[in-house]
């Protein structure tokens, strides 16, 4: 009965699709497993200044903040300071929503004074656990 055989035969491509899917899901599971085995560490934040540029009479300091820990820092407050002879002459802050573990985010702080004439410090001040 050729008609009946046709309905019960599965195309080879269905098994190819199943095999590719199994690989994909197994890959995802092993990725999660490798993350589970890695020890958890609190956010470890490093700031690097990318550029200092003039914008409409202000000075913009663009920075990249990298989280080398595994946990996410949420509502991260980043403070920029201009110092002269150990005294802070100007402060500016930025808030970043999320900096996930192992990820980097960019932001900027504005100053009225030219940061190039002072000692510039951009430091993380605080975050919350999401």
């Amino acid at each position, binding site marked *: 009965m050729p008609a009946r055989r046709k309905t019960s035969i599965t195309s080879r491509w269905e098994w190819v699709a*199943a095999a590719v899917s199994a690989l994909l899901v197994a890959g995802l599971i092993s990725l999660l497993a490798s993350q589970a085995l890695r020890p958890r560490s609190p956010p470890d934040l490093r700031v690097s200044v990318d550029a200092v540029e003039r914008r409409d009479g202000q000075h913009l300091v663009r920075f990249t903040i990298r989280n080398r820990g595994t946990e996410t820092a949420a509502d991260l407050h980043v403070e920029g300071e201009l110092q002269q002879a150990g005294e802070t002459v100007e402060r500016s802050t930025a808030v970043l929503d999320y900096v*996930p573990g192992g990820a980097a985010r960019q932001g900027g702080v504005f100053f009225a004074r030219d940061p190039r004439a002072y000692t510039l410090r951009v430091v993380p001040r605080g975050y919350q656990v999401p």
Partner: protein
Amino acid sequence: MTPGEAARAGADREFLIGLSRAFGGAVFFSLPLLMTMEMWQFGFYLDRVRIGLLLVLILPLLIVLARFSGFMLTSSWLEDVVDGVIALGVGVAAAATIMLTLDLLGPGMSLREITGKIALQAVPGSFGAVLANSQFSADRAEQRHEKALRRRAGYPAQLLFMAVGAVFLAFNIAPTEEIVLLSARLGPAHAFSVLLLTLILMHAFVFGSRFRGMPERPEGMSGISLFLRYTLVGYAIALLVSGYVLWTFGTLGPQSGGNGAVGLVVLGLPAGLGTAAARLVL
């Protein structure tokens, strides 16, 4: 009026009814996202290439959907292509109308913002436009015809239905802040439970849909075969679609860090249920 003119007037009337039904479907399907704050911001800051690519990729899905449940009873592929394009157009019109009414579009906005907003919001609406027929139509004969067509659809068409379900649900949830928050909160153990729960729920859907005759389970097809060919493949489609949608919204990328995989699993829950349910609903 000659008989020819009368027939044309009838066809015009039929088309206008189909079009207004499509418009209703577009509004119905796109309202949740039209009233989602994140979507208004994405309109202006999202990469133009990604918005364009989204529209290019959505069109073939709409065309195939039009084949199986378009708002007109079509007989040729050319008509389905036309239907798909019209559905996208209706999506644009519905999005623009609602956003104008809600004062989300107006003077003082840049062209970039306006086009970005409309293009993004047109996506869910265009699905609504093309699906309006199977959901709202009173034309039983047309529904029966398309239902029969869908029932006879082969494996590739079934995978496509699954992809449509995944795109629709993933697209509705991916732009929200909640996805970022959940993937930041969830550890690998929780993510793994989400993955497991998704597969169980999806298999329940696949197994349940069997009783509605779709897919018709051939003699001797075991539960494992059903799991591998529908549930697992459906989940893989859901993950791929989730990854694509997250990439489009910029949530997933080289800078997303270790929780990119978790984000995929989190969005994979609604997208996976979308793939499984699409075959029941469509």
